[in-house]
């Protein structure tokens, strides 16, 4: 599934109540190459909260079903991958991230789609406030 497809999906609690809010973004752990947290916001002016990926039961169709909506206590600093500038470890720019494909069951990233073509996830090196750093191919 793509990050842009997950963004905006309603977050549905297990007891069949109404949706808690909508997905705003996904936090990626670059070291393991997988999605670590899901961030969602309740309502237009609601506070954004993070939820560990282990608490997500299923993704799609049309909703993200979560086990418990208890806010994660230790969410890592969030840097959105979409639109992020890409630099190689030699300091050359490689465009920006357009979209990311990931496996919804294992949470592993499958591929990054950038303005300069596709990147395999095993080339990721670091993600910070300025750029996503990848190994030079």
């Amino acid at each position, binding site marked *: 599934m793509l990050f842009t497809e997950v963004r905006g999906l309603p977050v549905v609690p297990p007891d069949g109540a109404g949706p808690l809010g909508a997905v705003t973004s996904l936090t990626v752990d670059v070291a393991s190459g997988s999605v670590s947290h899901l961030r969602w916001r309740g309502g237009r002016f609601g506070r954004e909260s993070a939820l560990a990926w282990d608490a997500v039961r299923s993704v799609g169709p049309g909703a993200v079903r979560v086990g418990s909506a208890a806010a994660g206590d230790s969410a890592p600093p969030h840097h959105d991958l979409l639109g992020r500038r890409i630099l190689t*470890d030699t*300091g050359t*720019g490689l465009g920006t991230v357009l979209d990311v494909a990931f496996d919804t069951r294992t949470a592993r990233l499958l591929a990054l789609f950038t303005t300069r073509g596709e990147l395999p996830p095993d080339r990721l090196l*670091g993600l910070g*406030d*300025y750029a996503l*750093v990848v190994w030079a191919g």
Partner: protein
Amino acid sequence: MNELMTARSLTTRPVVTLGGDAVAQVKDTVCDAAAARITGFTLTGRGLLSGPLQEGLPWSAVHALGHDAVMIRDRRGLVAAAAMTAHRQNLRSRLLGSRVVTEAGAEIGTVLDVVVEGGTGGRVVGFRVAANRRFVPGRARHRRRVYVPRGATLTVTGRALVLAEEAVGHVADDLPGFTALVAGVPGRWRGSPP
């Protein structure tokens, strides 16, 4: 051969850790006494109103000098800027504007910019020179900006750089031409062909 870049173009280039965080941007380049290699950079903060930083970046902490960023391993590589520039001076005060002459005493011009090699080497490979009228003949108001290779030997005496005679045998008009010249493709012969 790594990409060549001018030292002036390095100013305002961001300093980014391998973790993707920008910690500073380059203010000026510091080179050693013989103008052979880069020994580090002085830094300013990233914000619009942030002034020069107390910390400098020594070349040993640089992972790679790239086209879009200076990559460092982590923030711990930064050292106090005063310690780094104690004996060496930054390019702006030391090299820019100094005279370039050959060993035989021929006047070549004044240094406008310093050409360095990117990647991990940090070598100084040449100079952009506002050439003397006798060195590059032409019309009186012709802009005589040429790239001169550093050559193997160079001595710095005060505000003058003394180049070996064979270093100025070939010059280039632009940076791509200079890249080819340094890589071994001889450019246009200065003056009449031999």
